[in-house]
């Protein structure tokens, strides 16, 4: 293998990973001191840092060249705000707008995490679950073989949108395997409220369950997030 290839495939050091933030001045004091010490003692790292500074300068040039929004943008915004009550209470809000509103109410981390799934929302049709919906909404909560129906408000819950291509049998199996039960929905965007525990779990524990369900069931779940 050539030296160049070795250079391309090597793992970066922790200090090298921090160089972009050092250039931008966004490291804390301790990290900044560590980077400065490393740069002072490692000429090769210092030479790499020159490239980071060049990247920083050029990205700054690109950003500055983007200019500014037009002077009337505030009027545009407040016209939209003024139009808001009618739009919010009207019946014409489309599906994607309602889903977007829901997603944007999530915390930034949850929001970011779910962005890919959110993009799918725009494209997906959820007619497959129509029968399922009927069952859920007309019985006041879908009941699996393993978990009895519980009134919403007790326990711990998540919102789930199922993959559009997944069968009802697969969903039933998924719910049974994970001891989950649908207690509500579908809301906008075919989001179902699903009970994951009969008691109120700590947020961190619920987050772990969400992460685990998401990782292990990506063929069934298109979107999942914590909810009250």
């Amino acid at each position, binding site marked *: 293998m050539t030296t160049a290839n070795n250079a391309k495939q090597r793992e970066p050091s922790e200090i090298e990973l921090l160089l972009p933030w050092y250039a931008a001045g966004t490291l804390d004091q301790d990290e900044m001191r560590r980077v400065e010490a490393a740069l002072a003692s490692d000429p090769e790292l210092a030479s790499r840092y020159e490239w980071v500074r060049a990247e920083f300068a050029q990205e700054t040039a690109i950003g500055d060249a983007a200019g500014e929004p037009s002077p009337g943008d505030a009027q545009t915004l407040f016209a939209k705000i003024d139009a808001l009550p009618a739009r919010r209470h009207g019946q014409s809000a489309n599906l994607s707008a309602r889903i977007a509103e829901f997603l944007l109410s999530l915390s*930034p981390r949850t929001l970011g995490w779910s962005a890919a799934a959110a993009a799918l929302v725009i494209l997906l049709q959820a007619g497959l679950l129509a029968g399922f919906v009927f069952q859920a909404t007309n019985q006041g909560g879908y009941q699996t073989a393993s978990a009895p129906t519980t009134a919403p408000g007790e326990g711990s819950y998540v919102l789930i949108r199922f993959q559009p291509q997944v069968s009802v049998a697969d969903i039933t199996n998924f719910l049974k395997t994970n001891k989950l039960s649908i207690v509500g929905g579908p809301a906008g965007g075919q989001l179902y409220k699903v009970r994951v525990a009969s008691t109120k779990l700590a947020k961190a524990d619920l987050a772990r369950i969400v992460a685990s369900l998401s990782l292990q069931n990506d063929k069934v779940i298109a979107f999942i997030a914590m909810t009250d």
Partner: protein
Amino acid sequence: MQTTSDEILIAKIAKGDRLAMEALFARYRIPVFRFLQRMLRNEATAEDLNSDVFLNVWRQAGTFEGRSAVSTWIFAIARFKALNALQRRPTEELDEQKADTIADEADDPEVALAKKDKAAVLRQCLLKLSAEHREIVNLVYYQHKSVQDVAEIVGIPEATVKTRMFYARKKLSELLTEQGIERGWP
């Protein structure tokens, strides 16, 4: 402190205070617009989405819990809207972008001249990065977001933020190599 001021503004916005909204908008309209434009490479769409971002801030201010900085929250909203817009972008627009990229690589006199200028080549290569890489490069270098801030905005762990930035820079190295500049790393 600006962070405190932002939080106060958000609290007022949650109560329907338009002056507070104007102040917050004045503070962030340009950085958010530039972030959107960097992501979308389209000024009109960026401006359109910019007001949508702040419309969401107006509507959702009451749900802001202060677990992250206000600016982090605003950029997370902007990123979400930019990604949605990229998903919806018509094929023709994507093709146009692709054509632009191809044109950038053409060896016409202007580009040949640019090749002599390392800074100009670097700038061209930064413009060719994927949306995922553009986003992190802009947040770190231009928006001056910390590792933690980027993690919050993008919704990934801090360790992933660092490695994603590294891979963005690695891709940049590859693009530079294609333009005849070999820096050998990352």
